[in-house]
């Protein structure tokens, strides 16, 4: 693919497919799913139209955050193989278009959430967008190897927003759901960063494998898996969910821990020999889907 220098202004109007790609649809799936689960697990009814709109706003807010992230990181994306074909580094869109699209989408999603749900859901949505863009993208990502540890909070907001859209408040269970995603993000991302380490190194992003090395990252993955498991099992242990969620949480968490042990035991530095890391990364996505699906099934069956 041919790319143009970032300073060279793109004159063609952006293709709508590129505007769609700017919203990071792949990441959005997990965000929408966890937001929907937060909404479905909340006690009390919500009108289907308002529920749909709340989930739509979560998706649009995530899209806005993704677009603003790509607007700010166009120079980094151009240096990494994994992201070089995105609309901005590939020169298919001007940065101004991405900025206007991201800000417009973000403001629209927050206003619509306020209209359809309530102030609290809108405030948490706005906070999540600003946190991802300002705290993670602008402040942490290029400065510290702990970027993903703190930045992980940005992706943890959706179940909180879904819950708040129904109830208008925040209680222990949605806070635990927040904690699960917050603690899940580091092992998930570090597993990925191990086998795309050279990409991050070339771009000068201080991801943990680049700064501390592969072995230290593998130990961190195992270490962070432990509090994540505690958070995952806590809703059941505290009596906030039933046995369905408890059984799934214990089973999935045990599998996650075993895979994390395999990662910790691996000494390979060649990405081709990083089978355990790739397995853990793939399983971590399934893990979050499984936990949240079990939560909703549990709440609905018990109810």
């Amino acid at each position, binding site marked *: 693919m041919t790319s143009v220098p970032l300073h060279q202004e793109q004159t*063609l*109007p952006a293709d709508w497919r590129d505007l769609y790609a700017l919203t990071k649809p792949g990441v959005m799936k997990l965000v929408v799913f966890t937001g929907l689960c937060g909404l479905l697990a909340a006690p009390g009814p919500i009108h289907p*139209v308002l529920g749909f709109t709340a989930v739509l706003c979560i998706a649009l807010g995530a899209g806005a955050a993704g677009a603003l992230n790509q607007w700010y990181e166009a120079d980094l994306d151009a240096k990494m193989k994994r992201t070089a074909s995105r609309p901005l580094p590939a020169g298919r869109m001007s940065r101004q278009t991405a900025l206007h699209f991201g800000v417009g989408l973000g403001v629209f999603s927050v206003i619509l959430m306020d*209209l359809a749900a309530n102030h609290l859901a809108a405030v948490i949505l706005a906070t999540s967008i600003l946190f991802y863009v300002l705290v993670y993208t602008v402040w942490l990502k290029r400065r510290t190897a702990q970027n993903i540890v703190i930045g992980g909070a940005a992706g943890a907001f959706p179940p909180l927003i879904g819950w708040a859209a129904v109830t208008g408040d925040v209680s222990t269970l949605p806070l635990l759901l927040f904690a699960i995603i917050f603690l899940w993000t580091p092992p998930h991302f570090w597993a990925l960063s191990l086998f795309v380490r050279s990409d991050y190194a070339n771009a000068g992003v201080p991801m943990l494998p680049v700064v501390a090395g592969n072995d230290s990252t593998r130990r961190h993955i195992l270490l962070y898996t432990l509090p994540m498991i505690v958070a995952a099992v806590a809703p059941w242990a505290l009596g906030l969910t039933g046995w369905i969620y408890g059984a799934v949480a214990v089973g999935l968490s045990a599998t996650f821990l075993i895979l994390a042990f395999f990662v910790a035991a691996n000494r390979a530095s060649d990405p081709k020999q990083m089978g355990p890391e790739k397995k853990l990364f793939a399983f971590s996505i399934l893990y979050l889907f499984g936990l949240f699906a079990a939560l909703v099934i549990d709440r609905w069956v018990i109810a």
Partner: protein
Amino acid sequence: MMPRDEDEIIRKRQRERSRLMAILLGLFVVLMFAITIAKMSINQ
């Protein structure tokens, strides 16, 4: 003067984006209508 093929690409993209914007605006109107009805039914 703009090369002919580039001009065509611009027109094509503008056409596609206009259509998409029309669809999205139509959906937005329907959604706002549905939200209003839903809010009214809750408050009754």
